[in-house]
């Protein structure tokens, strides 16, 4: 029942994932690669008639037109190509690049045939055999273009793999509800069914909601309000079992309740605080959940007492913290932090992450 939910999109049909050539970074990369290629070609050719610099200028001019032209074509065609089946998209992209090369080559030949540059420049700079020039450019373009597309495809596949693995791991970790909690809750409900049927009914509803939150896989982020509600449901169930021993103080009224947060952020922290801080203490204790908005950053803090000296301490609370840290890092790369410290006789976990209210923006931060 609590087995890890499968990752569904793995089988999504494979598509050609091109880099975004409209982005400044990509354009800069194209310019750099093209210029370096021109340098390599000019050095290798050792053209004695033109000399190195003139040869470089000529080659770079031609290659920059071709390179930036291809980048522009792929930029315009990115969306339509992404929607096509893989083979068709590759043929389409290759055809677009060859068309650009043909256009630029034709432009060069037209310029050579015209009298715009003057006879001397034309003789020195332009190819002698036009049709040979045309065919060679298309041939080289086809080979280089195919290699580039192959590279984009492989790196896209690799990136998708990494993302899928991360997502699968999230799901596997999310699906971990402590079996102890489940069976103890069932026992509590079994006791309540006769002594207090209304409470038992409530507990079953709470348990259902909690499992739904734990098993849901559609959304990687939910609103802070929903997330706090899941944690409160968890508290209600534990309250039935632990009674007077458990006190939870909620100091969260200052938080932006519509903020998007990763699912199962607070509940595992509260679970940890109760499992490690309250359960091992015969007299119980107080767990404090507090939160504040500091500029664009949301800070959440959960504190619980340490087990009494000599009392039994449950081992291993790092797993939940590591899980939360990984998920926050995936959602807000480099902009979140998870700290856990012993301070005096308390254990304090602090989360900080950016305040985002638009769910579509959360993955593109």
């Amino acid at each position, binding site marked *: 029942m609590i087995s890890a939910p499968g990752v569904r999109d793995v089988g999504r049909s494979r598509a050609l994932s091109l880099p975004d050539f409209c982005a400044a970074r990509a354009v800069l990369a194209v310019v750099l690669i093209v210029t370096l290629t021109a340098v390599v070609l000019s050095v290798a050719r050792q053209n004695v008639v033109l000399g190195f610099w003139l040869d470089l200028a000529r080659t770079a001019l031609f290659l920059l037109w071709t390179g930036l032209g291809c980048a522009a074509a792929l930029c315009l065609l990115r969306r339509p190509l992404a929607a096509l089946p893989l083979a068709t998209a590759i043929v389409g992209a290759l055809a677009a690049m060859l068309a650009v090369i043909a256009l630029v080559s034709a432009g060069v030949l037209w310029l050579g045939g015209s009298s715009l540059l003057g006879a001397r420049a034309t003789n020195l700079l332009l190819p002698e055999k036009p049709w040979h020039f045309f065919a060679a450019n298309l041939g080289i373009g086809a080979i280089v273009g195919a290699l580039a597309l192959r590279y984009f495809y492989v790196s896209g596949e690799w990136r998708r793999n990494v993302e899928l693995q991360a997502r699968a791991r999230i799901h596997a970790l999310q699906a971990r509800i402590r*079996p*102890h909690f*489940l*069976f*103890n809750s*069932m*026992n*509590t*409900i*079994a*006791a*309540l069914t*006769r*002594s207090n049927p209304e409470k038992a009914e409530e507990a079953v509803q709470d348990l259902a909601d909690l499992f739904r939150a734990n098993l849901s896989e559609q959304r990687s982020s939910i609103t802070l309000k929903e997330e706090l509600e899941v944690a409160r449901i968890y508290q209600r169930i534990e309250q*039935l*079992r*632990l*009674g007077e021993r458990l006190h939870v103080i909620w100091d969260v009224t200052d938080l932006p309740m519509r903020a998007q947060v990763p699912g199962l952020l607070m509940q595992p922290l509260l679970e940890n605080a109760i499992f490690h801080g309250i*359960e*091992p*203490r*015969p007299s119980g204790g107080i767990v404090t959940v507090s939160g504040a908005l500091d500029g664009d950053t949301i800070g959440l803090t959960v504190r619980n007492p340490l087990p009494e*000296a*000599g*009392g*039994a*301490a*449950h*081992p291993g609370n790092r797993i939940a913290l590591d899980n939360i840290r990984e998920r926050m890092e995936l959602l807000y790369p480099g902009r979140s932090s998870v700290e856990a410290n012993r301070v005096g006789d308390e254990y304090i976990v602090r989360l900080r992450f950016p305040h985002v209210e638009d769910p579509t923006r959360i993955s593109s931060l």
Partner: protein
Amino acid sequence: MNTLASTQRVLIVDDETPARERLRRLLDELGEVVIVGEAASGEAAVRLAGELQPDVLLLDVRMPGMSGLEAARHLALLPAAPAVVFTTAYDSYAIEAFEAQAIGYLLKPVRAEKLRAALQRAARLAAAQLTSIARADPERPARSHVSARLGDAVRLIAIAEIYYFSADQKYTTVRHRAGSELIEDTLRALEGEFAAQFVRVHRNALVNISFLAAVERDPAGQHQVVLRETGERLAVSRRLAGELRERLQL
């Protein structure tokens, strides 16, 4: 045997109120037993077992403070120790150990028919069985108390209250805040179990580190430890003096 003598007297032990409530109701419905009391902790279970002399304990494995396993170990000292049926929601190590030792246990939520069967088969457990199960517990390497037999009851002494253990040829004595008692554990076993808290100062003495006030030499050049609170002095053997110094500096 008449029916009255065969009626089992049961003590319910669980730290969670709803769990105790439920066992009480199930036992009431079985109708063949008398519930003599309820306890919410291991310590209370040991104390009540002495007072109420139940035949069977329904004993939760996982409780804060003293666990059910430890309570059972203390009770196993008694010549007329009660039978024990453990209850657990999910303690995989304990369940494995119970299976291996053929010890009766019930999984929560407990089913009425399984409860009936477990009570019929309930048997007193040997100390050795319980010790070996306790060793499998990943969370509690040592007991929270040692125990001394006191007639039909068990006297518990919290580890934090103990000044030192000392041994002569036959007996181990535990000297603690409220006096001293004879216990059945050997000094060697105690040293192994409480290695984090106690240090051997002599072939015949194991001292609680938190009560060590000072290490001194008497006029004859013999090393001694001085204890906090009592001011008692215990001889330190020449061989262990160096080790003791190292340990105290840590």
